[in-house]
């Protein structure tokens, strides 16, 4: 590791050593928890180095324009300015991207969305950098913008790419081409653009290195995919571009793409000074991708008793100006877009298109969130048509273990749809409204209503989500685990590049090491690219995949330790285990002290025992582009929600009274952390149902602030009854099943269903605002 004089406030993210107990299945304390609650945790925006300068970004004011000229002279002449760089200054490939390298580091000839970076400035003070950025004179020739995804599909519209406007079109075909059914329900649905709304803005610090390379400290979700793109843009080999994870203040998918990474590195290498960049809130809204807005047309056919016969869907995702992960979102929308139900016949067309809107990409729930609003509304419509309850229609049609799903894949572990719904039915309903407490009423403390016109509704939703990367992606993680004596005590250290973004992965890594190696203290090495890739902290995959890698590395370390112990003590290695800092026999007899064994210079070097393992889950397959058939996914995670709402039908206000849920997590490695994920995910899904939307008009974001982009407050958030099922997936380490995304998918549709039940309104768009309920 390069040693550099990096200074941070007290409590850097690497300072995470205090708690020393908690194996898997226990509520181990988060090593970062206390620091975050007391405000001592250092986030990326707290990075600081003496002599550092500040970078800022010049962005396009137009959704679509040709760059005629850029004059950096006036900006460069500003006292305090060190550098002003444009596309000409990008030494490597001026093209980055997660799936397609289609996005320039700095726009060259054309800008394709409002907010696209055009130039970057470094100055000795952030305000001077901003002032200088305003003096960069860019002459634009404004071009016609494509801001409607439907229009973008039309071949007659402006084509934004040589390959056309379609990023991906996935067809899923199963069974008969034109099936008929006794009962047919259909609807159109629309989902607005949701933001990840993480609190820590994009930020990082790039430090030029003596070897001609650069060290980048940054808040991100996937260090190695960042490294690949930064290397490509800088024209440097990986050993000269070293990334370290800084404190991440939330991610939710919005940090999977690059933001300031290459910009800070370019400025650092150009000025030979450390360069810090921190976006402000408005810039952050333009500086990361969002959840794809979607328009959807669905039709389900069923037998008179409600048994599904066919599902048809057309799903259109607006991908915005650059591809980001639109292709994979289309993959999920297509392969999972009918929900966890048994469909003999399927016809789905799922599209992702380029427009001149803000780019869209990964966000928690990834393609399933949008579709869930449509398929769950249809299931309710079907239930009503055939005269059964919303719960009954889901229990009747939910997939079961051993079923073949709509892409021809066998669901080969637990699929407890029926049970999840029954659990919700068995949970107590909240008490009827008392009316006395304003907080219990729609509008809450705003004194909006005293109960006149308030009606209650109950809604259900059942959804599922793939865990891990799908469609043949080589999805793996790397873990380096070491066992050694420190201060007379056997201590494990674990080094992965898997990003801790607040979800609790470092706690899980510690719990696995304690479980497998029988030690108390586990040091989590700072996350960086000095170890192999951990893959992305997304797709609910890290506990599964990095957890699997840590477990495998621990097993390799343990095997070596026990083999050595066997030499010393006369037991066979198979008869030995590690527990409580001791080597113990299966009989329970303590055979050796682990620290003493490790301290034996004849057996082990000073640095103890270290193993590095690259671990993969079962491979998946690409799906057939014409039929969507194939073993696309490695694991499915199921969840169900029941929402109870009080709706003021006069004023259009909604109070979510209860948001209860059941979810199969395979194995709760840290039950408190699982509850936290479910509470947070449920709230984020509810936010999309009720209030969260980036309003985009003609390619411009109209509400780029947390005053105008509303996320639920604690007063909007109801009590939640949460039931966790633990049906082990035999293919996954410890039987785990991804936890983070499912609640975000099923909560929103349950809230929407409850409002529909209360009001009798169709409500075919989310977020549902007061004017949609009052219908005027």
């Amino acid at each position, binding site marked *: 590791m390069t040693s550099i004089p990096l200074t941070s406030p007290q409590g850097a993210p690497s300072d995470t050593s205090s708690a020393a107990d908690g194996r898997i299945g226990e509520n181990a304390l988060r090593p970062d928890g206390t620091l975050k609650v007391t405000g001592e945790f250092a986030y990326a925006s707290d990075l600081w180095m003496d002599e550092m300068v500040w970078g800022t970004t010049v962005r396009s*004011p137009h959704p679509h324009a040709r760059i005629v000229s850029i004059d950096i002279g006036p900006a460069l002449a500003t006292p305090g300015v060190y550098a002003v760089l444009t596309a000409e200054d990008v030494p490597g490939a001026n093209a980055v991207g997660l799936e397609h390298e289609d996005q320039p580091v700095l726009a060259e000839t054309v800008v394709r969305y409002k907010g696209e970076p055009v130039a970057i400035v470094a100055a000795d003070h952030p*305000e001077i950098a*901003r*002032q200088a950025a305003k003096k960069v004179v860019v002459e634009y020739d404004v071009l016609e913008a494509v801001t409607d995804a439907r229009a973008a599909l039309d071949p007659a519209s402006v084509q934004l790419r040589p390959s056309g406007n379609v990023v991906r079109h996935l067809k899923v075909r199963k069974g008969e081409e034109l099936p008929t059914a006794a009962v047919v329900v259909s609807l159109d649905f629309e989902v607005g653009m949701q933001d990840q709304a993480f609190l820590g803005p994009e930020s990082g610090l790039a430090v030029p290195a003596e070897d001609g390379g650069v060290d980048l400290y940054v808040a991100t979700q996937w260090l190695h995919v960042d490294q690949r793109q930064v290397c490509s843009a800088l024209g440097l080999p990986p050993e000269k571009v070293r990334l370290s994870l800084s404190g991440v203040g939330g991610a939710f998918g919005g940090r999977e793409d690059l933001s300031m990474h290459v910009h800070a590195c370019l400025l650092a290498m150009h000025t030979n000074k450390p360069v810090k960049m921190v976006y*402000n809130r*408005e810039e952050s809204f333009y500086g990361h991708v969002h959840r794809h807005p979607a328009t959807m047309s669905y039709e389900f056919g069923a037998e008179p008793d409600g048994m599904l016969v066919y599902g048809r869907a057309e799903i259109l995702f607006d991908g915005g100006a650059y591809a980001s992960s639109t292709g994979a979102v289309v993959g999920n929308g297509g392969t999972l877009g009918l929900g966890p139900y048994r469909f003999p016949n399927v016809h789905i067309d799922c599209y992702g298109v380029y427009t001149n809107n803000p780019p869209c990409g990964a966000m928690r729930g990834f393609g399933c969130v949008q579709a869930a609003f449509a398929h769950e509304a249809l299931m309710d419509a079907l239930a009503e048509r055939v005269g059964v309850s919303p719960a009954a229609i889901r229990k009747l049609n939910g997939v079961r273990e051993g079923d073949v799903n709509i892409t021809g894949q066998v669901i080969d572990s637990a699929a407890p749809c029926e049970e999840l719904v029954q659990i919700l039915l068995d949970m107590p309903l909240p008490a009827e409204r008392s009316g006395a407490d304003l907080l219990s009423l729609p*509008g*809450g*403390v*705003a*004194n*909006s*209503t*005293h109960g*006149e*016109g308030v009606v209650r509704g109950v809604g259900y939703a059942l959804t599922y989500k793939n865990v891990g990367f799908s469609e043949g992606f080589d999805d793996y993680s790397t873990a380096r685990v070491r066992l050694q004596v420190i201060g007379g005590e056997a201590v494990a250290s674990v080094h992965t590049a898997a990003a801790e973004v607040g979800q609790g992965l470092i706690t899980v890594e510690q719990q696995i090491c304690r479980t497998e190696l029988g030690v108390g203290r586990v040091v989590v090495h700072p996350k960086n690219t000095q170890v192999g890739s951990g893959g992305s902290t997304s797709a609910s995959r890290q506990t599964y995949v990095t957890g699997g890698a840590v477990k495998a590395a621990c097993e390799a370390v343990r095997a070596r330790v026990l083999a050595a112990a066997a030499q010393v003590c006369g037991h066979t290695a198979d008869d030995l285990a590690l527990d409580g800092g001791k080597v113990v026999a299966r009989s329970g007899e303590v055979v050796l002290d682990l620290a003493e064994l490790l301290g034996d210079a004849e057996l082990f070097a000073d640095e103890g025992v270290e193993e590095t393992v690259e671990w993969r889950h079962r491979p998946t397959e690409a799906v057939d582009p014409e039929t969507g058939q194939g073993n696309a996914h490695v694991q499915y995670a199921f969840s169900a929600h029941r929402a109870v709402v009080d709706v003021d039908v*006069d*004023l*259009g*206000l909604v*109070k979510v009274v209860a948001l209860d849920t059941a979810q199969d997590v395979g194995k709760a490695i840290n039950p408190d952390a699982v509850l936290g994920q479910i509470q947070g995910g449920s709230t984020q899904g509810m936010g999309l149902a*009720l*209030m969260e939307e980036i*309003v985009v*008009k*003609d390619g*411009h974001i*109209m*509400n780029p602030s947390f*005053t*105008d982009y*509303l*996320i*639920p*407050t604690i*007063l*909007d958030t109801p009590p939640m009854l949460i039931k966790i099922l633990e049906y082990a997936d035999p293919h996954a380490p410890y039987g785990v099943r991804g936890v983070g995304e499912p609640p975000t998918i099923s909560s929103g549709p349950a809230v929407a269903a409850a409002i529909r039940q209360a009001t009798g309104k169709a409500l075919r768009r989310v977020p549902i*605002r*007061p*004017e949609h309920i*009052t219908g*005027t």
Partner: protein
Amino acid sequence: MKAFSYSRPDSVRDAVAGVAADREAKFLAGGTNLVDLMRLGVERPDALIDVRHLLGHDIEPTADGGLLVGSGVANSDLAVDPRVRQAYPVLSQALLSGASGQLRNAATVGGNLLQRTRCVYFQDVTKPCNKRQPGSGCPAREGSHRDLGILGTSEACIATHPSDMAVALAAVDATVHLTGPGGERTVRLEQLYRLPGDDPSRDTTLEHAELITAVQLPPPSALYRSSRYRKVRDRASFAFAVGSIAAAMVIDDGLVREVRIAFGAVAPRPWRAHTAEDALRGQPADAADFAAAIAAELELAEPLRDNAFKVDLTRRMGAAVLTELAEAQQQGSGR
């Protein structure tokens, strides 16, 4: 942010003189709105004259039994004052429904009255806006106007005033004390604001360098004691109003003896509903009449594509709050 000078004078006189001497200078109090707008480049003062320490921080009784509220009083302090809660509940309720606890602690009474509109075009310096840049146009009419005005708007501007407190003050007939280069004067709260007409750039009737020193509340009465504030917003706390109502009403022998109604979030200023008040005064206190009276006021509304819902919202909310006030009095409890 544009560079600016900062000063903290020792007297109101010096502060006023400082601003008067510089067309581009502004007073700074709580800063909760001004500083945000400076960061966005919407407000571009070249000098900030800090007056927070100079403004009155007390709520004092007046000779006629009313209250004189120093303009430096924090929103949170005004909201919880026992005299305010008892005699003017509408004001306390309005304050507590606004912003967040932290903002209410920082924001002053004077600054609250002078908040600028939340119109997205006003806040985005890359867009035309007649209020920010006279003559540049108003994209809101065709664009994003869901949160904008239906009453008192003009071709040039459809902005709304964002304050909750001001709506309550309009309903309790508050007056505003001003001091400026030309001396002191007093205006009724309604007169503090002007409608946009052809010149939306000025929100208020204040002259340059005029400073709000206090807000005066009239003597307590049965009318103001029987008052309510209601607000509709998109989440349960920390959000601007989609619509709001401040109302006070006294019923005597089944007839509306006196009534005050003000609408929030529908107009460039707190909208005193004089037409509705006139229609109700002396008439039987009947729920259907309440709705009709509010509807009569809303006859003047000029809603647009995406904010037409505010007409029904305001009518329903207004009828509901008047009904509630009537019922409370018929039950003999002022609650």
